């Protein structure tokens, strides 16, 4: 039985039920009454231009469609009678149209939409049981509309999300191929569980935690023998398939998602088909990735491009920025060049020790959308081939998608969405890997090969690190609206990913002469079953209510098998079993979360809204003495600008407040006292595993947020402000056990209390707007301040590269602060001010406390636009572990160049700065001083879009976009090297970040041609 069959057997009860129900309902429906057609054109009231992608829905039914590029729509087979059409579009106020359909006739229904930056009637679904208008929500929700976005072709979902939403930080990991980004919503709410938000795609829960790093399993070999990157499942999606993204950032909004949702929710909606003739889109991208300098001024690429340190002086003599006597950086190479220059008078080419390249990138995307009568479709495919900047880095990905909608009847609709992706990544060995390229190049002649000779270091590339992920996300929703006031949605979905990590150092590899092969197979499965019912009724007069209820079950499973072999008999391409020694491991983890919820929204005069709700969850990881967990919520919304007394000149304003709880479950085994089977010399053994805690439950995060949304100055400026405070109680801390009493190390317990608070503000405005010219500016502002309130009696402890102590930020940066770093004097490291209980200095948090984003779009004549997005992050601290590791080994680190020259020239430490004395004299090294501010600004993208439809025959339209991503950057100079967007090994799931022996993320330049037929 195949894997797919196996999973199908599990999901089939749900799917079969849904499909059977749909089929039966189809059969039992009465014969369709006589019908007619409604068609029309939706345009902007201000300019008359067509509104593309407007949603036209028939109230009280599941019928609806979207407008095309010309703003036109058509609704076929509408039952005869009078209907109300509801028309919504991003950027416009909703409109209602009343139409009367005659049998066999076509009715024209045109509408003009009034622009609205506040969009109180935009429909959202995330955080609500069914659909809700923005005006009803007491919490803030970020909605990113990509339905009409053709100017900005992001290469990955990570890049798509960067600087898109207030309160969301998307931090890139490394510059290696496949490295995923870490996403945080309003900082970190947990110190022991993942802070990655949970992700839904078309209502189906999908994996959000990173894929397993391609590295030997513990016990097989040192786990650092790897590229040390973590791939993100989010990047299996094709950005071009995305229509809309909704983001809710904390418990106040995510209560109904229950036990897993404390870190927020990202819900992604892919494109749907619309009725009409097939419409084809083709997108072709060509570009390259390039690494900006990340070293010191005189060694800008940390030995990766030593040629940059070599210049020809005015006297036509070869000069190097590296004095010969310091000889720390590719000395053999420089000596060789000098010799060759003397002999030939020209620079040698190519530079043999240049390990960085301009990585060529290309992508091809195609899609077709259309539909007829009761069936609509969107089918797409993409292929991409990206070379990284490192010599072995490459990503190849194929993504296909088919989204289908069936209007089974007026009150029954079935959506079925399926995506398959195949992702192949080849990596260069990087990170904290003693057999890797980056570590050994950085450390030059004091590396593990004892040489900076490129020939020697090139031998490290004789290894193969490849990762392949096959992923299937499939699922469907049945929408059943038996009565206009009663709607139901039932969703089932399966997210299935198979990952193979293969890591080969072949026979003859310089550091493992007999060879090593590690192969890991991972299967990840997430199964969603979800039901929601909504019942609208009028209580009295202007007071209406929507009662929602439902249940959800999420089953997640990971099956991992590891095989490891070493000591091969000879050259060749081995399998694991070719090794003289081989071993295998297996791991299976399954967890289930199931819960029910209800919610009621009270609506008074369509401007006062009160929402009350709760979710009740069980989880397989809870301790046996722990029961069902309840999460309540309440929110209010008040559209004050719709009060009769509100002067229209004041614009539109909505006030809102929300309070809610959500949780994070412990790991599958955390509650149980266990022993781990092991083998010793061929004999079975038991070793202590987990201490166990029968009272273990989820940590609970309560969030309160208050704010307003407003549109002012005749809708030219919109503003949004939110104050939030999250308090995590029963926080899961790894409480250290008493070693002399027995079981090892630590046990999770619900003991702590932590708090996050801050504000979010956004302002967007149209600076000027003419027929051919326009300038729109936007700015966002976000703060986050965390605090440990209570450790539950536990002593302060280290967590996530950080320090947990009451009164300080969550997972704080703790080390030694040099109070006189630049003084030529003895170091003054006495702690003053922010001191931890152990006497060390608390620098601050490791998550940004201040994020500022800005966007600008300049419209030029002939449809040309120039847009830019920038982001500043500040207030956080990062540890430079790459420097620490090197300095501990007396490596001649570039930041110590001045000190080395002084000391090697016969000087003494009295001539060194305080910092140099602690960093550059091995016997005095104190690596606790290597904390640095990680403030930075990056221009996330600059895009020039030019319509070129006139040059493409038979095309409805075409655009050419030129994009530069992350090329312009400013980094706090106190961080003397590298980039704050670097990380250690498990970039997505790590609680915090630290600089490891990686390269920073590269800048990407792309030319994209997009044509619609």
């Amino acid at each position: 039985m195949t894997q797919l069959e196996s999973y199908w057997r599990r999901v089939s009860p749900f799917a079969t039920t849904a499909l059977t129900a749909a089929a039966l309902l189809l059969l039992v429906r009465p014969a369709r009454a006589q019908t007619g057609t409604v068609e029309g054109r939706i345009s902007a009231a201000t300019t008359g231009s067509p509104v593309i992608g407007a949603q036209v829905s028939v109230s009280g039914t599941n019928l609806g469609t979207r407008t095309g590029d010309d703003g036109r729509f058509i609704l076929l087979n509408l039952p005869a009678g009078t209907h109300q059409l509801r028309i919504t579009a991003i950027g416009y106020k909703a409109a209602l149209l009343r139409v009367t359909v005659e049998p066999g006739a076509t009715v024209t229904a045109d509408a003009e939409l009034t622009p609205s930056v506040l969009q109180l009637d935009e429909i959202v679904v995330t955080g609500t049981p069914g659909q809700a208008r923005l005006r009803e929500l007491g919490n803030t929700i970020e909605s990113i509309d990509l339905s009409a976005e053709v100017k900005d072709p992001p290469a990955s979902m990570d890049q798509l999300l960067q600087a898109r939403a207030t309160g969301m930080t998307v931090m890139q990991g490394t510059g290696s191929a496949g490295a995923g980004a870490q996403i945080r919503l309003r900082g970190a709410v947990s110190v022991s569980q993942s802070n990655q938000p949970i992700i839904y795609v078309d209502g189906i829960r999908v994996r959000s935690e990173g894929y397993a790093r391609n590295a030997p399993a513990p016990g097989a070999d040192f786990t650092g023998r790897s590229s040390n990157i973590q791939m993100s499942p989010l990047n299996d999606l094709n950005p071009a398939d995305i229509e809309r993204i909704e983001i809710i950032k904390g418990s106040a909004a995510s209560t109904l998602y229950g036990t897993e949702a404390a870190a927020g929710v990202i819900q992604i909606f892919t494109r749907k088909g619309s009725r009409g003739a097939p419409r084809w889109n083709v997108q072709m991208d060509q570009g390259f990735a390039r690494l900006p300098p990340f070293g010191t001024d005189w060694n800008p690429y940390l030995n990766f491009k030593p040629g940059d340190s070599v210049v020809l002086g005015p006297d036509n003599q070869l000069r190097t920025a590296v004095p010969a006597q310091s000889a720390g950086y590719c000395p053999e190479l420089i000596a060789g060049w000098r010799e060759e220059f003397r002999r030939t008078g020209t620079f040698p080419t190519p530079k043999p020790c240049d390990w960085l390249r301009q990585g060529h990138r290309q992508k091809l995307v195609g899609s077709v959308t259309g539909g007829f009568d009761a069936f609509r479709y969107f089918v797409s495919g993409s292929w991409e081939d990206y070379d990284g900047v490192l010599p072995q880095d490459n990503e190849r990905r194929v993504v296909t998608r088919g989204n289908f909608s069936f209007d089974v009847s007026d009150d029954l609709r079935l959506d079925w969405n399926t995506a398959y992706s195949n992702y192949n990544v080849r990596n260069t060995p990087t990170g904290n890997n003693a057999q890797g390229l980056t570590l050994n190049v950085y450390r030059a002649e004091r590396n593990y090969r004892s040489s900076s000779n490129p020939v020697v270091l090139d031998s490290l590339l004789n290894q193969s690190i490849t990762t392949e992920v096959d992923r299937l996300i499939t699922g469907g929703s049945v929408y059943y609206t038996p009565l206009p006031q009663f709607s139901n949605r039932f969703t089932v979905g399966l997210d299935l990913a198979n990952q193979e990590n293969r890591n080969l150092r072949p026979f003859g590899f310089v550091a493992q002469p007999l060879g090593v092969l590690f192969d890991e197979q991972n299967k990840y499965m997430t199964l969603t079953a979800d039901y929601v019912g909504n019942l609208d009724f009028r209580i009295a007069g202007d007071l209406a209510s929507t009662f929602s209820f439902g249940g959800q079950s999420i089953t997640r499973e990971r099956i991992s098998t590891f095989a490891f072999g070493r000591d091969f008999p000879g050259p060749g391409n081995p399998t694991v079993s070719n090794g003289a020694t081989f071993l295998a491991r297996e791991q299976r983890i399954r967890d289930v979360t199931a819960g029910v919820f209800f919610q009621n929204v009270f609506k008074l005069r369509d401007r006062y809204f009160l929402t009350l709700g709760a979710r009740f969850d069980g989880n397989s990881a809870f301790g046996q003495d722990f029961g069902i967990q309840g999460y309540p919520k309440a929110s209010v919304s008040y559209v004050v600008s719709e009060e009769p007394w509100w002067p229209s000149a004041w614009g539109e304003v909505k006030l809102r407040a929300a309070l809610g709880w959500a949780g994070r479950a412990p790991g599958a085994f955390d509650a149980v006292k266990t022993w781990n089977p092991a083998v010793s010399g061929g004999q079975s053994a038991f070793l202590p595993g987990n201490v166990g805690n029968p009272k273990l439950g989820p940590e609970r995060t309560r969030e309160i947020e208050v704010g307003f949304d407003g549109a002012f100055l005749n809708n030219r400026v919109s503003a949004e402000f939110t104050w939030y405070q999250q308090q995590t109680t029963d926080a899961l801390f790894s409480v250290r056990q008493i070693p002399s009493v027995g079981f090892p190390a630590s046990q999770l317990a619900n003991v702590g209390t932590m708090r996050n608070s801050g504000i979010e503000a956004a302002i967007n405005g149209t600076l000027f707007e003419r027929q051919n010219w326009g300038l729109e500016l936007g700015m966002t502002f976000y703060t986050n301040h965390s605090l440990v309130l209570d450790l539950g009696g536990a002593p302060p402890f280290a967590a996530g590269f950080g320090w947990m102590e009451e009164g300080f930020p969550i997972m704080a940066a703790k080390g030694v602060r040099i109070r006189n770093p630049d003084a030529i004097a003895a170091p003054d490291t006495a702690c003053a001010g922010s001191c931890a209980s152990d006497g060390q200095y608390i620098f601050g948090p490791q998550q940004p406390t201040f994020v500022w984003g800005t966007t600008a779009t300049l419209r030029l004549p002939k449809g040309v636009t120039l847009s830019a997005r920038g982001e500043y992050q500040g207030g956080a601290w990062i540890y430079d572990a790459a420097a620490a590791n090197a300095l501990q080994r007396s490596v001649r680190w570039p930041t110590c160049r001045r000190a080395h020259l002084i000391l090697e020239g016969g000087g003494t430490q009295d001539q060194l700065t305080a910092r140099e004395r602690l960093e550059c004299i091995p016997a005095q090294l104190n690596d606790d001083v290597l904390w640095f501010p990680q403030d930075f600004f990056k221009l996330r993208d600059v895009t020039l879009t030019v319509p070129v439809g006139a040059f493409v025959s038979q095309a409805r339209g075409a655009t050419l976009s030129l994009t530069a991503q992350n090329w312009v950057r400013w980094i706090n100079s106190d961080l003397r090297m590298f980039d704050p967007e670097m990380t250690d090994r498990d970039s997505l799931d790590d609680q915090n970040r630290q600089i490891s022996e990686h390269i920073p993320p590269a800048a990407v330049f792309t030319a994209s041609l997009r044509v619609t037929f």
Partner: protein
Amino acid sequence: MATIRSFRHVAAAAALLAACDTTVTNPGPVPDDDLNNPLAYNAIVTGARLQLARAYGSDAAFGGQIAYWSAVLAFEINPAGSTGSFGIPTLVQAGTITAQLSSGDWTAANLARFVAEDALRRFAANAARDPLLAPTPRQISEVAVWAGYANRLLGETFCGAVLPVTDPDGSLSPGDSTAHTDYFLRAEQHFTSALQTAGTVTPDSVRIRIVNSARAGRASVRLDLASWGVGGTAMWDSAAADAALVPNTFVFRLPFSDQDQNQYNYIYWARAATPYRAHTQWGTFHEGYYRTTRDARVAWDSTALLGDAAVAKFGGRVPFWPERKHNARNSPINLSSGWEMRLIEAERALVGGDPATAVNLMNQRRTNLALPTYDNTVSADSAWSLLKFERAVELWLEARRLGDLRRWIVNGVPGSYPDGLYRASIADTLHTTPLENMTTPVARSLCFPIGQNERDTNPNF
């Protein structure tokens, strides 16, 4: 009516979801109760052995570096590079180990003791509950032996002891900080218990191995106790009496495995050049001694390589001359041997003022190795020096040296010891007398402090 019908469907669906059973049993880790099955007992016993190996030194999550780092402190090896992974922390290189640094070793060693003693408690409780659940004498005696050696490791390594208190309900509570000799007393009890139980073990070959291992272990901890003044002359006598019953040829080894990195011999793995070359014999007294005598007990290999990183103390990278005693991933570490027993008898003789007998006992081993024998007419002080030397080479890299040096130095035992640094820097020649020893120019750590993690978590501290 339609509404009611729909509600019924919806309620049914909601009930279905609400009734979802979230109970999941994942394979892999084994619940504690499952270990009460007698078929699991052999694995419990093996677990006690494996955990002890991890405490001596492995790459496991809860593994320790006692054999490795104590060897550095006692000059049995010199640092040759790495300070992080597989390496030697700078402080330890300089001769000091702090409570923070020893936390991992403290955990690992306590875990070794806990696993073995927990097995004994489990066996006793199960046997009392149901005779069908009783373990075999072999299982009891073997796990008691591991409990004894785990306690010996704690006593010979750590500066103090913390032993848990057994509550009336059988659970454990944290104990107070006491003298490290309490571990020796506890070890002696376990070895005695093993000897009592082993009498009925079959076959004979197994019984003899268990008896010898328990008796040799008890001899060694009685020597420790006697050295620290516990039990007076009678303790010396009982140590020698136990030792005398163990034949020369007996060796009791702690196995390691080359199948799993968690079970590799860590002293070897830290210098296996993959790519770590973290320690060397360059500059130790064994460098010159082996060069001169070729005494196989302290063999090392000469390579053209350098250590894997510069060593600040030596001013650069030093020659990589790795020890040869642990030359494979699965090299075992000796826990006891008949030749160690002869040295225990010799030490008893020295304490009794009989250097000639002591030297004769030492010469048995040297004769066995075809090495020149010592003159048995030497003075008592000289005989003590010879004993210290012989224990240095006989028990080399077995996590015993630091305990020996501690008991001799602290208790003012006569005679000199060879341990020290014999080269000052990469440019220095080999000296004939040490440039540094355990007390000069700085006092090096003679024991591992109780881990900071115990100090932070035990309310009795």
